């Protein structure tokens, strides 16, 4: 019998599988979440994604897809009658995809560097992160969300930052984004965390905090 339904292979602590969950929840799609142990990946995951072997992987009626930003666009197209994720206009879509690419290529490593460094290296990492976030802020000008009045593709792709970066700031006792340094980004952080679908799907704070604190300590101790 042909496999039916939606399965998402992910990790409870991963911002990349969370963004797919946001897309599915916005579309009100029922799905089964398969929480992976990345040190011991399941046979199913390796079968569905033999190319990169990474999460997240979405399996829709037995057909697998990898690469979270690709999956988010797919969710928008596969369930066209629900919430609109991508802009309609081709130029706006190109802009959203461009900034999403920038957020992945520049913001992800920049925030990662903040999370694993201390001392002088941390100071340098904070400056670099603020620079790339300043550039990303350009896509917010005059808007509440990147998507306009409601969240869209770019909000979903960059949306891990309000949660994860604020957590790293707390753990490392630093400030990267605030009303003075990055006012638009700071406001977007606040607004994004207030969105219903985001509020009810963030991983448990204490658990995520402990996870990221342990991770930071691992890197700082040179492992």
């Amino acid at each position: 019998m042909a496999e039916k339904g939606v399965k998402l292979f992910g990790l409870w602590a991963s911002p990349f599988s969370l963004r797919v969950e946001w897309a599915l929840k916005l579309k009100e799609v029922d799905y089964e979440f398969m929480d992976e142990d990345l040190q011991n990946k399941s046979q199913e995951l390796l079968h569905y994604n033999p190319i990169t072997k990474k999460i997240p992987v979405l399996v829709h009626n037995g057909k697998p897809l990898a690469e979270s930003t690709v999956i988010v666009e797919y969710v928008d197209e596969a369930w066209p009658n629900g919430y609109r994720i991508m802009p309609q206009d081709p130029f706006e879509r190109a802009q959203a995809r461009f900034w999403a690419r920038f957020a992945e290529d520049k913001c992800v490593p920049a925030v990662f560097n903040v999370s694993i460094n201390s001392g002088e290296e941390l100071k340098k990492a904070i400056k670099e992160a603020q620079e790339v976030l300043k550039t990303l802020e350009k896509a917010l000008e005059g808007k509440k969300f990147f998507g306009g009045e409601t969240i869209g593709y770019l909000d979903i792709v960059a949306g891990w930052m309000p949660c994860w970066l604020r957590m790293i700031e707390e753990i490392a006792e630093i400030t990267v984004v605030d009303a003075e340094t990055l006012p638009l980004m700071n406001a977007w952080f606040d607004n994004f965390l207030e969105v219903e679908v985001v509020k009810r799907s963030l991983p448990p704070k204490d658990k995520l905090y402990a996870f990221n604190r342990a991770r930071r300590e691992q890197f700082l101790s040179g492992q």
Partner: protein
Amino acid sequence: MASDDVKLIGAWASPYVMRPRIALNLKGVEYEFLEEKFGSKSELLLKSNPVYKKIPVLLHGGKPICESLIIVQYIDEAWSGHSILPSDPYHRAVARFWGHYIDDKWFPALTGISRAPTDEAKKEAIEQVFAGLKFLEEVLEKSGAGKPFFGGDTIGYIDIALGCNLGWLRATEKLSGLTYLDESKTPLLVCWAEKFSAHEAVKCVMPETDKLVEFAQMLKAKFSAPPSK
């Protein structure tokens, strides 16, 4: 009419620039090609792509679109005619996945070969290039069913994403003595490469291998020469 005005900022040797050129050719769109001078960036480029300052940049009615595969998708959506991406959402997503794979994993491995600091790293990079080609051979086999292109009877997104690298792949083969497109390993890809390169939307923008070899040698000499005053 201003909204019909199409310009592309690029350079002859860039595989990324080839992508939107092929897409525009497939759609039958006339455009002005603005060739960047090697070694310097024009005011127009810096103004149109202030974030990355890189080519290609498409200017449609004066509005800039950057990043080659994003430009290709834009071209597919903005103009009717030949469909570059599949019409089915799942196959579209699969095509986009391979675009990412080619740009984020495969091509860096290819350029990583000459830059590898150790023999071990070089061996790993070469293995990744061959592994990637094997994956793509399987994709061609599955989606192809005897068809010449990843897109079926006609050129599609994956063809463009991969095929733009053929010039440099052949140049690298000449410079290194290694054969990447090997009939014994990936026969479908070898056949595909020939058909792709000969396609009317491609052949006029595919740089000649010998010219690329010359260009690579010039670059090497330029960057390893002692700095001039």
